[in-house]
């Protein structure tokens, strides 16, 4: 792998290799006094975030540091972006400054692809840490890692993705990755929050949450992304919450072994009830913990091997 831009097109073998590496890293670091590996000593990783983020940026930074890479954070505010520098000039500047890997989040869908084009196939790697409403591949990988841990395997499992699919890069990345790994994906959302192309995805679509819950092995609740909503997608927050929120009563419909996921940040009381988010079925803090190991694995696969070896 040179870049990690999407989970669409990622083969089952590649995805499994990253997930296995993440598992091994987790085992290796478990209970150790020194949680640092020398593997990426002398490599420089830059995070370039044009959108707010807590867990993604922090876990990439921790992942890089635990692998002994030098991690530098660039944010849009406080950098030359504020003076009007273009994305292309910014990334070429970062490469010139010595970046071996650029981890980018940008509000425009396709931004990571453009970065990868500008940087070419030699030298600096690009990791997409979320581009608009397109993809967020490391989130899908950490969700898959968490599900593998809880359910054993993804093969033949039924995973429901619930809520604002339209604006969710997490949903897109998960649809492709989970399907590649053999899971059956059900999108559950009001018709206004489903994208036009969803019928071409390897998924089934449903509009009623209650009917689906009893058959799901895992349910992934999405945040309602008010900041991307310009127009009326549902009558009121209260109505959305009543129809598509994971209340305690609704969580009781899930099979006992089912896992509740949320990519965060959560809007408690909106798409997920506080008691459900804190229940034993929820794997939300495990998702964050696995995020560090998955991102270490991604950096390992992108940066540790021979230069030019695919």
């Amino acid at each position, binding site marked *: 792998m040179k870049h990690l831009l999407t989970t669409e097109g990622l083969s089952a073998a590649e995805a499994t290799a990253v997930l296995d590496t993440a598992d*091994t890293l987790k085992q290796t670091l478990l209970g150790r006094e*020194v949680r*640092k590996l020398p593997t990426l000593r002398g490599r420089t990783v830059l995070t370039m975030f044009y959108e707010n983020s807590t867990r993604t940026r922090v876990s990439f930074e921790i992942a890089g540091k635990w692998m002994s890479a030098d991690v530098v954070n660039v944010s849009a505010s406080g950098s030359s972006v504020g003076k009007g520098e273009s994305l292309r000039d910014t990334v070429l500047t970062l490469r010139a400054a010595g970046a071996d890997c650029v981890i980018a989040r940008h509000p425009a869908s396709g931004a990571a692809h453009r970065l990868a084009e500008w940087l070419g196939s030699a030298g600096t790697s690009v990791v997409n840490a979320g581009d608009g409403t397109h993809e967020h591949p490391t989130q899908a990988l950490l969700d898959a890692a968490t599900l593998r841990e809880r359910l054993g395997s993804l093969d033949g499992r039924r995973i429901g993705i619930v809520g604002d699919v339209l604006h969710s890069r997490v949903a897109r990345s998960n649809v492709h990755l989970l399907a590649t790994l053999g899971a059956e994906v059900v999108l559950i959302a009001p018709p206004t929050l489903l994208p036009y192309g969803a019928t071409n995805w390897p998924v089934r679509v449903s509009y009623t949450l209650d009917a689906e819950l009893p058959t799901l092995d895992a349910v992934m609740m999405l945040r309602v992304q008010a900041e991307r909503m310009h127009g009326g997608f549902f009558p009121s927050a209260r109505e959305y919450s009543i129809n598509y929120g994971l209340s305690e009563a609704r969580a009781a419909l899930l099979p006992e072994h089912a896992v509740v996921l949320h990519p965060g940040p959560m809007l408690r009381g909106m798409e997920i009830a506080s008691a459900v988010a804190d229940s034993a079925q929820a794997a939300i803090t495990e998702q964050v913990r696995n995020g560090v190991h998955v991102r270490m694995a991604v950096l390992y696969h992108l940066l540790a091997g021979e230069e030019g*070896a695919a």
Partner: protein
Amino acid sequence: MASRSRGAADAAGERELLTAADVARTVARMAHQVIEKTSLDAPDAAQVVLLGIPTRGASLAVRLRDRITEFSGVRPPCGTLDVTLYRDDLRRRPTRPLEETSVPDGGIDDRLVVLVDDVLFSGRTIRAALDALRDHGRPRAVQLAVLVDRGHRELPIRADYVGKNVPTARAEDVVVRLDEVDGSDGVLVRGGKA
């Protein structure tokens, strides 16, 4: 096992160094040497921990542990130590998959760690293992047991227990086959001189 004629080169340019029976005898001898050198059955002896380097070193460590238990009555803890993340040649090869690391409960602090590997060659794997050990704790001492020492060291590293010393040409391959991994036991030298 058809070819028992040790040292005879066959058509593929292979010569057999150790047969399955030789491997069993060699491991048994190494077990005796570990018991003797560490005196692990003495009441005040340091606690010995065996750590095998995957893949075949891990299998060898388990065999060595079983023989040590059989001969001394003491069953030292046994684990695995993957050194991939500590290698100095990562950037010269395609990305390697990681293997399992499992340090026995009780850790390695103040223990006598015996690293176990199949072949000792350049010494770089052992260098990586020493670095990896440092991140897991501070052993009282570290020793090294290898089934085959084939020479060509590139670092000042030597083994404390050697199953067989084999002078080889650099271009040759030493192939260790173990039942747990390969379905049968044996050691071959392949390729190199015509």
